[in-house]
């Protein structure tokens, strides 16, 4: 195939413009969550670190029994994270004030309105349900663990000790229970109502009312209202959220929006490039074909011309020969006639 440098660049330019065009089409928009979707408001000032939520979660999700019983509160002395066997953990932080009062804070999946895990998953194993939960379908999961890297809250975990059917494990927001009208396991187990459950709009209202009524008790911020585009778990705290190891640098842009531009071009590239490349190939082939056709024609013509020439030469030669022959015959006849006339004269 012979494609000139100029031709290649021209094609690439054209491909680039189509790609840009499709990107501009995916304009940013803000998804405010499914209406009436459910939500938990975690009022950190009310948490007493009793680990009842962990017990409740373990029970309703039928997770393996923990190595240390839930009644043992000494585990709180060390910072823990979610594992494949625990969807939620309570951690203890100390107040920066002089009294060093303990602050307890429960961690689990925040159920983003636009989940990063779902946007990173190329087999669509994650679903943002209209109830608000982000659910996971193990049957399609290929185990790439992109979701674990994508999650800004470091929540999804992997069953590394499961040799044949490892799954991603994370809080399900008790989706099966919630759809039946039951409370999530942790919420039901919480004795102090540090976890309030209701519609997201209502929980936002509740959080604002608490801040308004007890201004000295809370930091004037509802964590999860806008973080990463908003989440279906909200938090109220008496100390700055960064003191509790919560990220305050996440911004308000949902994760999918950050990647949608680049990712949207992937199907375009996948679909268009074969066509494009085939086209380029076909065109260059055609050119080749055209070129080779011309050559053959010329050859044929030349041959024909040569043939015709030689034919003409031949005919001419033949005619000449014929003529010469005739002339020779006539001459011979003439001479013979002259000779015979001479002979007759002489005779």
């Amino acid at each position: 195939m012979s494609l000139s440098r100029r031709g290649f660049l021209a094609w690439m330019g054209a491909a680039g413009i189509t790609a840009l065009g499709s990107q501009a089409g995916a304009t940013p928009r803000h998804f405010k969550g499914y209406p009436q979707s459910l939500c938990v408001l975690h009022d950190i000032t009310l948490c007493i670190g009793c680990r009842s939520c962990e017990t409740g979660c373990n029970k309703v999700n039928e997770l393996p029994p923990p190595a240390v019983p839930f009644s043992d509160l000494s585990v709180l002395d060390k910072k823990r994270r979610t594992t494949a066997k625990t969807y939620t953990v309570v951690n203890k932080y100390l107040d920066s004030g002089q009294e060093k009062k303990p602050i307890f804070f429960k961690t689990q999946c925040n159920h983003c309105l636009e989940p990063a895990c779902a946007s990173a998953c190329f087999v669509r194993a994650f679903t943002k349900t209209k109830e608000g939960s982000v659910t996971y379908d193990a049957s399609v999961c290929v185990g790439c663990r992109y979701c674990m890297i994508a999650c800004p809250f470091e929540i999804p975990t992997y069953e590394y000790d499961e040799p044949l059917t490892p799954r991603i494990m994370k809080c399900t927001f008790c989706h099966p229970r919630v759809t039946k009208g039951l409370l999530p396991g942790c919420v039901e187990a919480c004795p102090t109502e540090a976890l309030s459950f209701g519609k997201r709009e209502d929980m936002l209202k509740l959080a604002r009312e608490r801040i308004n009524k007890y201004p000295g008790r809370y930091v004037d911020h509802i964590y999860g209202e806008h973080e990463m585009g908003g989440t279906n778990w909200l938090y109220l705290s008496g100390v700055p959220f960064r003191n509790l190891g919560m990220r305050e640098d996440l911004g308000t842009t949902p994760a999918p929006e950050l990647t949608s531009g680049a990712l949207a071009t992937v199907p375009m590239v996948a679909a268009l490039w074969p066509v494009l490349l085939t086209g380029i190939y076909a065109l260059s082939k055609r050119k080749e074909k055209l070129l080779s056709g011309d050559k053959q024609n010329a050859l044929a013509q030349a041959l024909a011309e040569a043939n015709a020439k030689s034919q003409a030469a031949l005919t001419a030669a033949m005619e000449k020969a014929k003529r010469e022959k005739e002339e020779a015959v006539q001459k011979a006849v003439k001479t013979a006639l002259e000779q015979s006339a001479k002979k007759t004269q002489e005779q």
Partner: protein
Amino acid sequence: MEEVKSTLRWTAMLCTAVGLVIFALSAEGYKAPEQKAEKDRADIILIDTSPVFGRGDKPPVAFPHDRHTEIMAEQKKDCFLCHLKESKPQAVSAGPAPQPESTERMSLKFKRLKDTNLKEVRKIYHDNCIGCHMSMAEKGQEFGPIICGECHKEGAEYRSARKPSGMDNSLHFRHTKAAQNKCETCHHAYDDKAKKLFYAKGQEGTCRYCHQMKTEENRISMPLASHMSCVECHRLGKEKKLEAGPVTCSGCHDSKEQMKIKKIEPLPRMERQQPDTVFVKTLGKDEKAETPRMNPVPFDHKSHEGYNDTCRVCHHASLSACNSCHALGKPLKDGNFVKLDRAMHQAGSQTSCIGCHQLKQQAKECAGCHVFMPKGLMEQSDSCLKCHMKPLPDSAAFPKTAEGEKELAKKLLQSRQPVKGTYPQGDIPENVIMKDYADQYEPAEFPHRKVVSSLVEKMNGAKKTSQLAAYFHNDLGTVCQGCHHYSPESQKPPKCANCHGRPFDEGNLMKPGIIGAYHQQCMGCHAAMEIKKPKECVECHKEKKK
């Protein structure tokens, strides 16, 4: 040929190995800079030329002043080794103490009277500091830094633990006693025409009313004024071998030293023609008198003097009546555009009535109940009447004279019926069984009467907050309302379960379910009152046997 090649190969290998080792070592060699233990000191003076002369090329010097005073004392030298004498300005010369007869005083600057220019000032510091340290070194004594980097250090060797100092009413009383009631020893005013300080009797106020944080045209800054006057007077006293206040930095500015300052108990009242009882004035300077819309508020000025450490708590800008700056109608510039309503009712402010009362509710005796109550102006109108008292039935008209006003205010205040105690013991349920909690625990037994008695005891205590409670609690049933809230005071208030049931009531999001309510109320109260017990779940409700 083969031999040369082999040698070359080995050399290359060796070079690579050495390079790698060096690289690895240099990477390993990095260590985090060591955290130096910072010393908290109250006497750190930052010798920083940048505010006057602009940024220098060396870091400023943290100078431990008290360390130097100690050494001076050991060597029997006085302050004038470092501080020069300066003549008092004309305006001050006839004015306040210390030593009104003297025309000289101690300059607060180091070895100079004026900040002339960077070069000169730098030379003064370098010559005198290093010079003195060197001479001590020559004498074989322990000596201070002499090399640039020893003084001009990046990063803090010391951490300033300086606490602002001030004079409370107790300390003021000790000073009046020491000055034999001669207020003019310290108090003065400025005569604009004569450009002189003079003593205005009966016009005394806090230093800070005039001396602000920064030096202004005709008045020096508060730090300058206090160091020139307080420290100088103490120093002179010490010179005369009298009992005098501190001359070191830490003496006034160290939190531990501040605790040691003697308190006068009971504190006699400060005399400055203030009223015992008074009506809170509502009309601003230029406002016309009209019939007051609200009942005027009688105010027990005398008692409130005892509730606060200084007059400045309420009289934050002057010792005059609130309405001279905070008017009812038009916001005035003098009052920072704060109207009277806000000046009296603003929550969270120590200078407003309600703000200060709500701060008092944070005392642990009160916080058990009040922690649950929303802050700000109460919506109930009858709580307004606690201050805006109804006129007495026998008083016909509002008196026209100041004396009459004071008398009426006194009468009104005396007519108040402080609420002490609660309903008779027999009418209070002894125990309340809480059996709403799930399958996991036995019912909890709540010692209801014991808790009420303990609250009443705290309410009736000797603390000043209990007086506040006595005046502002409405009724015998008010103490019950800490838990039996959102219902009128009554001997038989609703039970918890009458209102609290299942959690997450969409109709009233703020209302917790019964289990949440119990835990929030019990534990919230215990935390606010700093009651350490109970620590375990089973101390309230025993585990159910399975």
